[in-house]
């Protein structure tokens, strides 16, 4: 049985990755998960300098999901390079570094700093809804998406994944713009902007008022968007959004994703990534799938 997949020349032993921001740089979850069993670890977004993030409360549970407005708290590239990358290189898994910034120059500075680092891919976060500058501001306009992709590609020594926001009218436009700018891979979806109000206190549940909705509640939206984007571009796709079971992961793959990321459900079950790896193998055994590549985008092929 072959579970390995190829993303822009990088071979993952299986399609299961972690979603940026939900897994730190792996150290905390390594107490529960054998990182060697994962296709890749995607780190929390790192900027050129440390960011403090937003005031608390930063999270609120919602039906089948949660809102977060962490605000990309991160240690900055210096400490990240010194501490987090050496931790991850001890494991037999691919390392994907998520990059955030407030300006185009910030993104490029981080990408340059990572050029000679032992990492496998870069994921460019142009879709965080919780920061005032950067983030989603770059991800809601196709011209900006294309421009930032092109700029980052000038300096990137690793394949570039552009992470798209679902908070747009037509996500395929953004995907096509990223592809036109030279993106190697597209990942989607980031969180959907939402709001929760505490009726007893008559306040916003989050200090930031709005936050990004994630978790199983958004999974069908993510599957639909992965399907649409898979039809619109040639480059591979990483699907994410509420994946909590092998079945959820397989839906994404059948919709057209080459790999998948598990995010919020890590909070529900810290071992869930390994369970999904095993569940995909069981599915392949049950349906006698020799190579997982047979499943990518196969939803249309079965009719």
């Amino acid at each position, binding site marked *: 049985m072959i579970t390995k997949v190829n993303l822009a020349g990088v071979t993952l032993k299986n399609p299961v990755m972690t979603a940026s921001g*939900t897994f730190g740089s792996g150290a905390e979850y390594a107490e529960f998960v054998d990182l060697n069993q994962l296709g890749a670890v995607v780190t929390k977004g790192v900027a050129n300098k*440390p*960011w*403090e993030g937003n005031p*608390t409360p*930063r*999270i609120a*549970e919602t039906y089948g999901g*949660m809102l977060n407005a962490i605000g990309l708290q991160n*240690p900055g590239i210096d400490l990240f390079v010194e501490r987090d990358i050496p931790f991850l290189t001890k494991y037999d898994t691919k390392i994907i570094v998520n990059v955030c910034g407030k300006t185009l120059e910030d993104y490029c500075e981080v990408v340059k700093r990572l050029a000679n680092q032992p990492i496998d891919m870069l994921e460019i976060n142009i879709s965080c809804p919780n920061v005032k500058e950067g983030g989603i501001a770059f991800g809601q306009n196709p011209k900006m998406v294309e421009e930032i992709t092109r700029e980052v590609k000038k300096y990137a020594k690793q394949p570039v994944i552009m992470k798209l926001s679902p908070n747009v009218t037509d996500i395929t436009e953004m995907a096509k713009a990223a592809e036109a700018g030279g993106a190697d891979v597209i990942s989607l979806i980031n969180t959907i902007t939402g709001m929760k109000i505490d009726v007893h206190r008559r306040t916003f549940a989050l200090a930031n008022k709005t936050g990004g909705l994630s978790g199983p509640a958004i999974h069908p939206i993510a599957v639909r968007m992965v399907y649409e984007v898979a039809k619109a571009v040639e480059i591979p796709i990483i699907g994410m959004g509420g994946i909590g079971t092998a079945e959820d992961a397989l839906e994404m793959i059948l919709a057209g994703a080459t790999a998948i990321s598990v995010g919020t459900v890590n909070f529900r079950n810290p071992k869930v990534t390994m369970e999904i790896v095993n569940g995909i193998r069981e599915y392949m055994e049950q349906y006698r799938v020799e190579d997982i590549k047979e499943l990518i985008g196969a939803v249309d092929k079965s009719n």
Partner: protein
Amino acid sequence: MTEKYKEQAVIIRQEEISYGIYSVWLKTDKIAEQAKPGQFLSVYCHEGSRLLPRPISICEIDKADQAVRIVYRVVGKGTEELSQLGTGDHLDIVGPLGNGFPLKDKKTFLIGGGIGIPPLLQLAKELHCEKQIILGYKDNLFLHKEFKKQGNLYIATEDGSYGIEGNVMDAIRENGLEAEIIYACGPMPMLRAVKTYAKDKNIECWLSLEEKMACGIGACLACVCKSNERDNHTNVNNKRICKEGPVFRAEEVEF
């Protein structure tokens, strides 16, 4: 660092010990063996729409019987679901989490307010010194009989229905109490008053904080508090309550 475990615990017994306050003894595999006073558990709901664990402090540890006790207030649907479980039911938990209280045998104040009271019980049991236990309640008392066995007990109630009418600081003042070290857990206004008191009197003071949490293990950065020193995770001034805390030196944190 203590080892953390994800376990399916079994409920030994659960009872409502005061209005809306529940006590559960859980049979664990390894968690009880590792647990220290002041640490907490992530408790997962059975209902799948409630994704996030409820962080609940450990009230008592019975290492011989591999059991831990948690005492919690029903505040929402998750804790309401938990309160419905009974003997023999399973409960997914992760723990023990957080740092816990340092044990220092000096003349002590143990100050608890409301649902911040439970973690002080195991602490009281593990301290072997002169203990002055000051508990503040809104109205209905709980755990007070168990604390009574652990030291000199002083109670304050907001409505004056028991003990001193007022808060824990009133109880300290009116009884003329003094200490060399303070351990406290309770609502933020209480912790602010305790912090100010400790600073004025120049007393070593340890506070257990809470904040909305998601992962409970230090990865998601939801439950931070402002700290005076740079934190070792992000190198800013945000300590993770679930990881570097929940217990902090009073002068270490701003709230």
